[in-house]
């Protein structure tokens, strides 16, 4: 497949109004090329979750268009790897069963039990939780649950990956570890990815581009190029000059937009 003008995720004039008449998301225009990762920054209530939920097919009523490779996601839903803020694990299933079930549902016609088993083992190991396979989610720490949720999303081999403030409940150290693990794995298997965060540093560490949502839903989003920071080796990013400059720049945009 050669990349065409249509490839990737395209969102045109998307707006969502909830039943109570509340405008949750106003006129979003956004293009994410295939195999890119964009981070989304925005104040509380600016519609970040609503945007992800609409793309994920959880909100069916919206105005505007969401296209993937030129086809509306309404007609042909691409495979979604969703990582909600609350992890979205079923408490009554073990770590292994949670991933296994999601894989079976998303790939109903694939019938190679052995390779599926290998996949699960691979992703558990990749997220550093191989020893947790038989545990139940309620017996895990928040950081461990988040690793499971991310392992599950990767194991689905999704076309689009959507992460909604996945690390916001974690302490700083755990958070850095999981950020690194996530990014390493993403680079090896880059799905088209939207990553919502309210943390400026996280947005700069993980995004090729950064989308800043305005608090006024009539205004347009601001798209900030972050490629030069993204390409720095992850260990060195935080201490780099580019990272520092980018932080300053984004803080300024935020001050104007929020």
């Amino acid at each position, binding site marked *: 497949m050669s990349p065409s003008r249509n490839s990737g995720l395209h969102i045109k004039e998307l707006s969502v109004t909830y039943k109570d008449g509340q405008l949750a998301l106003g006129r979003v225009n956004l293009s994410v090329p295939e195999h890119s990762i964009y981070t989304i920054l925005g104040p509380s209530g600016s519609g970040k979750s609503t945007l992800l939920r609409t793309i*994920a*097919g*959880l909100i069916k009523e919206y105005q505007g268009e969401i296209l993937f490779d030129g086809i509306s996601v309404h007609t042909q839903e691409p495979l979604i790897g969703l990582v*909600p803020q609350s992890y979205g694990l*079923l408490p*009554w299933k073990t770590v292994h069963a949670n991933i296994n079930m*999601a894989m079976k*549902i998303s790939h109903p016609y694939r019938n190679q039990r052995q390779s599926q088993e290998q996949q699960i083992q691979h992703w558990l190991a990749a997220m550093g939780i191989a020893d947790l396979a038989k545990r139940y989610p309620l017996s895990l720490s928040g950081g461990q649950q988040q690793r499971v949720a991310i392992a*599950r999303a990767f194991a689905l081999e999704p076309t689009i990956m959507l992460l909604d403030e996945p690390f916001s409940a974690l302490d700083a150290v755990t958070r850095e570890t999981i950020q690194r693990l996530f990014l390493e794995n993403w680079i090896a298997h880059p799905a088209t990815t939207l990553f919502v965060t309210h943390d400026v540093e996280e947005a700069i560490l993980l995004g090729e581009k950064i989308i800043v949502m305005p608090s006024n839903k009539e205004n347009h989003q601001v798209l900030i190029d972050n490629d030069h920071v993204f390409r720095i080796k992850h260990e060195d990013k935080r201490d780099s000059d580019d990272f520092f400059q980018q932080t300053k720049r984004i803080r300024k945009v935020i001050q104007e937009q929020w």
Partner: protein
Amino acid sequence: MNNKKSHHVLRLLLVFVSMNVIWYIAYVLINHSILPSPLAVYSSMGHLEGKKVWLDVCYSLFRIFAGVLLALTIGMSIGLLMGRSRIWNKLLDPVVYLTYPIPKIALLPVVMLFFGLGETSKILMIMLIVLFQVIISVRDGVKAIPDSTYDVLTSIGASALQKFWHVTLPGALSVILSTIRISLGTAISILFFTEIYGTEHGMGFFIMDAWLRMDYTEMYAGIMLFSLVGFVLFLLVDYLDYRFMKWRN
């Protein structure tokens, strides 16, 4: 863990033994054939003509299982419908609200009028007792599952059946089990009433038959056996709870 369990068993045994001691003291004090000694009752339990008693136990168990199963099937369907659909809840809620407080035992004569004295009315009575509890607890259990629990499944295109199987049913199972536990006691009492008439089999019949023949030792033996069956049923529910609710701790 194991230590805790053996302590629990020890406590149960202790209570059981003390109850028998009290019984024995009462037997000595009353000194009348209406209360035989526990030893006599236990030895008569051993001498009950094996097959006949097992047939009675099987009849009773069948009625309980059939009634509970029926109540679960119907109650879960209605409870799920009410828990998942706002319209159905609005429609059925007043019906449940109005019929729930009716003491179901009062319906016994009605059920007998409509369905006769046979098997059907016995099973129906048990079903009626359990049904309303199941409906209400399943509805509330399903409602208590946060919407977000379904999100990941919905996002990967799971069917309604898959969501039911992986989320709704296991999510409501805990309340279903505790409902069964609570209604089982009532169901067994009702069973006793219904087995007094229109049957030659069942534990209720066995006890009342011994009473009519004034064979009090056998009557008490029947009561003990009936209690034992109830106890085993409770253990069964406990086992199910242990088996399916491991994830809670």
